[in-house]
Structure formats: structure tokens, C-alpha cells
């Protein structure tokens, strides 16, 4: 099949004669050089793209049986898990995949921050990436409610109660999000619409822009050095060239493939050995608006902000700090304009980075109790 006169080669030649496909593949994959020092950590973007694609496919399969109405949502998920053939597979991959996607996203952000690859000319990468981060979190919030079990219902009640602390408009904001005073079928419908229609379109648009700017500005290389504003033509766009780099295909491409396979292997490892990790007891009881269970927590990626909110005595200060952090995060390239990319040469930033990491970790651990 793979030999010179085999079937695949014949098909390839037929397509080649009509589209000139090999030219595009060569210029985009082989002639596209990447720096010599790029490695596995540069492939996290590909992993995330594939992870999202997996979510999309499993999500569409789940969509064939899911019913977004409070009387039927839980039953339809039960049907998928128990009666539909292999329904459990799609549901588990979707649940575990979403959590792993957020975890990989955190790692990706940390790597980019650590290497300082958000500085000029890559500010747009960071801006679009930050936006993608919040879109993914919105995916998580909206998707969490859809199974309509005790865990999702009350977790969503908690998360949508947070805006009540904003003065004057807090209550109205919460009512606007919920479509009413409480979380009801109306909330379910609009979260479903967002999760399935609006957010995917929004995400794909931003992903295209993000991939475009990443491709255009090229992967960062230490040999790039810091750009000297006194240099002639420093304000003009310059397509990066790596004379001692290597072609994207096959080296970095294979590394990306490896990371993707590893990601999927971890998904199935979790499904095999830790099946109830993301589906605890409360997730198997239908949502009951009149019965508040004892001690419900938001999902792990929201535990740190949730704990912070509960620890600070004045709740308004609590949420203001969160807003400040979010603004700082989104617009970070405009705050950190120091040209030095090596974090080890910037002790203050290193301390800030490690402290934030440790505090986030501690808050998340604390939030579990």
C-alpha cells in the first residue's frame, strides 16, 4: 500500500496533478523552519487544538441523544451512560477531556509566561490567547450545568451568585445571567445555546486569529535576542528566519504527534483507573431545586478564586482583587515591557511568578475542604 506504485501513491499523484498540493505542504510544513532549541513544550498549542477537536466530536455525539430540558436532561444523560451503546465512552471522554484540556491550558500559559514569549512582537498572541482562556472557562461553566444533576445545579448556583457582590447592579447581573431569580430551565436553555452554538463559533474565530499571529511571528528562539529600537527597520514587520533551525516537518511535527498521543493516553488512563474522579456521588442524583446538598464545590479550576473570595472578609474587595488580577492577566504584555526575556535575569518577576503559582496551588488545596 505504501510502495511507489501502491494505491495511496496513485491517489496522491492524482490529487497532486489537480491541486499542486505538494507545493503548499512543502512551503507550510517543510520550508517553515523552527528554531533549533524548540522542543516538546512548543507543541502544547497543537495538543490544545486537538483536545478541543476531541471535545467537539464527542460533544456532537452526545448532542444526538441529549435533551436540554430540565425534565429530560438528567434522564437523557442516564440514557447515554446506560442504554446507548458505547455512550459511556463518549461521555467519559468528554468529561475527562474537558478537565485535562483546562489543565493543559494552564501548563501552556505557564510555559509562555515563563519564556517571556508574549513580548514584542508577540503581544497579539498573548491577547488572543488570554481571550481563548476565558472562552474555554465559559465553555466549562456552561457545560457543567447541562447534565442537570445535584452537583451541576448547585455548582452553577454558586458560580452565578458571585456577581451579586457588585454594588448597585450585582443582583440584576445575576438575574440576567440566570434568566430569572434562580437557576431554572431557562438558564439551562441559554447555557446550552452558548455551549453548543455561540461559544464554538466564537472560539473558532479567535483560534484562527491566534494561530495566524503565532505562525506569522514564528516560534521564539533565544538567538532572537532583544530587539534594539535604534536598529534600522526595527518598527517594520519582519518574518522570522532561523538559519540554523530545522524544518517543522518531520521533527517538530512528530513531537507534536507524540504529545497529542500522550494526552489521549492520559485521558484513557484516567477513564480506566479513576472513573469517579470527575463524577462524584452528587453527580448521579437528579437536580432538586428544593434540596440543598451539604458542601458543594465548584470544579477544581475555579477553586482558587472561590477560596480567595471566601477568605477575604470584605467580599467586595475580594471580587475587586479578582477583577484586577483578570485585567492584569489579559493585558500583561502592556504592563511588562522590559525587553529581557530570560526570567532568571529578572528576580522580581521570578518571585512574582513562583509566589502566584504557590498561592494558586495552596488556595486550590484549601478549597477542597
Amino acid at each position, binding site marked *: 500500500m*505504501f510502495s511507489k506504485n501502491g494505491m495511496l501513491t496513485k491517489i496522491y499523484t492524482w490529487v497532486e496533478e489537480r491541486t499542486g498540493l505538494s507545493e503548499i505542504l512543502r512551503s507550510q510544513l517543510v520550508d517553515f523552519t523552527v528554531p533549533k532549541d524548540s522542543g516538546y513544550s512548543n507543541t502544547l498549542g497543537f495538543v490544545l487544538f486537538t483536545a478541543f477537536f476531541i471535545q467537539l466530536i464527542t460533544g456532537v*455525539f452526545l448532542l*444526538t441523544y441529549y435533551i436540554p430540558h430540565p425534565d429530560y436532561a438528567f434522564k437523557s444523560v442516564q440514557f447515554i451512560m446506560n*442504554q446507548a*451503546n*458505547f*455512550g459511556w*465512552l*463518549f461521555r467519559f471522554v468528554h468529561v475527562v477531556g474537558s478537565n485535562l484540556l483546562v489543565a493543559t491550558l494552564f501548563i501552556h500559559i505557564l510555559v509562555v509566561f515563563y519564556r517571556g514569549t508574549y513580548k514584542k512582537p508577540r503581544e497579539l498572541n498573548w491577547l488572543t490567547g488570554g481571550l481563548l482562556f476565558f472562552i474555554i472557562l465559559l465553555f466549562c461553566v456552561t457545560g457543567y450545568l447541562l447534565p442537570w444533576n445535584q452537583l451541576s445545579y448547585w455548582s452553577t448556583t454558586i458560580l452565578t451568585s458571585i456577581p451579586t457582590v457588585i454594588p448597585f447592579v450585582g443582583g440584576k447581573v445575576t438575574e440576567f445571567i440566570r434568566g430569572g431569580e434562580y437557576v431554572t430551565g431557562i438558564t439551562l436553555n441559554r447555557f446550552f445555546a452558548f455551549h453548543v452554538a455561540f461559544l464554538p463559533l466564537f472560539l473558532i474565530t479567535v483560534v484562527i486569529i491566534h494561530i495566524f499571529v503565532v505562525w506569522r511571528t514564528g516560534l521564539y528562539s533565544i538567538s532572537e535576542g532583544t530587539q534594539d529600537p535604534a536598529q534600522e527597520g526595527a518598527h517594520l514587520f519582519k518574518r522570522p528566519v532561523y538559519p540554523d533551525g530545522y524544518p517543522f516537518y518531520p521533527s517538530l511535527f512528530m513531537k507534536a504527534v507524540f504529545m497529542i498521543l500522550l494526552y489521549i493516553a492520559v485521558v484513557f488512563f484516567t477513564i480506566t483507573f479513576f472513573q469517579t474522579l470527575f463524577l462524584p456521588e452528587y453527580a448521579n442524583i437528579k437536580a432538586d431545586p428544593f434540596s440543598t446538598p451539604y458542601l458543594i464545590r465548584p470544579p477544581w479550576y475555579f477553586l482558587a478564586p472561590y477560596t480567595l473570595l471566601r477568605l477575604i472578609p470584605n467580599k467586595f474587595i475580594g471580587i475587586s482583587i479578582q477583577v484586577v488580577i483578570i485585567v492584569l492577566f489579559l493585558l500583561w504584555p502592556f504592563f511588562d515591557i522590559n525587553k529581557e526575556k530570560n526570567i532568571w535575569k529578572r528576580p522580581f518577576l521570578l518571585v512574582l511568578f513562583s509566589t502566584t503559582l504557590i498561592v494558586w496551588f495552596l488556595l486550590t488545596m484549601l478549597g477542597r475542604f
Partner: protein
Amino acid sequence: MTRRSLLKSLLSYLGLATLFSFIYPAYKYLSPANIFARKKPFTIKKKEIPEGEAKDVIVNSNPVIIINSPSQGFIALSRVCTHLGCLVDYDKSRSRLVCPCHAAQFDIDGKVISGPAPKPLTRFALTTEGDSVVIS
């Protein structure tokens, strides 16, 4: 065969195996599930249940009670109490169904009158065909 081509073919075969391990479940997932298999309808002659009386039957392994109500005709309700699952009994004198475990009471429409039952009794679709009653 070179090492490279050996590895490449190994990868292709594994890849193909993976592909089929997803295509098969995807195909089965979209095929009709087993519970939609045709179930046999249950038939009983009308004269076996005099007016005002009720009869306990089993329909597709569900315990069902068929009541011949003077006001509403034939009604088929699940006998499984929605509290913890005991089978309810028909109290003819008060036209209601009572659960012997914790005294949950239901009327002949299946609605909860009193007791710890959280939901009404499941009602089964019932049709009359000639001199028989059919529950599908």
C-alpha cells in the same frame, strides 16, 4: 526492511487499529439501543376485573395494578411505590392505593395523597380492544 520503514508500518497498523476502535463504537452508538426492542403487549379480558375491583398483574416484569373504576373506566398504574419501592395495595372502600411499608397513599390517578412518596405512581398506557384491555 529498514528500521524507519518498520517503525512507520507499525505506526500505521496501530493507527488503523485505533481508527477502527473508534469507528465501531461510533457506529454502535448511533444504532438503535436495545431497550427499543419490541415488547410484548399485555392483554386481559375485561370480565376478569369486575367493576370496582382491581387486579395485580405483571407487564414486562413490571408489577402493575389494573383498576376498573366506575367513574374512569380501566386504569393501569405501576404498583411500585415511589418512596422506597414496596408494592402498593388497593383499598376498595376508600378508592385509594396504600403502601404497606410507610403508609404512602395514592388516589386512583396515581397522585400522592399523603405519606413520604415524592412522586405520583407511573401510569401505563391502556387501550380497550373489543372485550379485552391491552397494556403496551
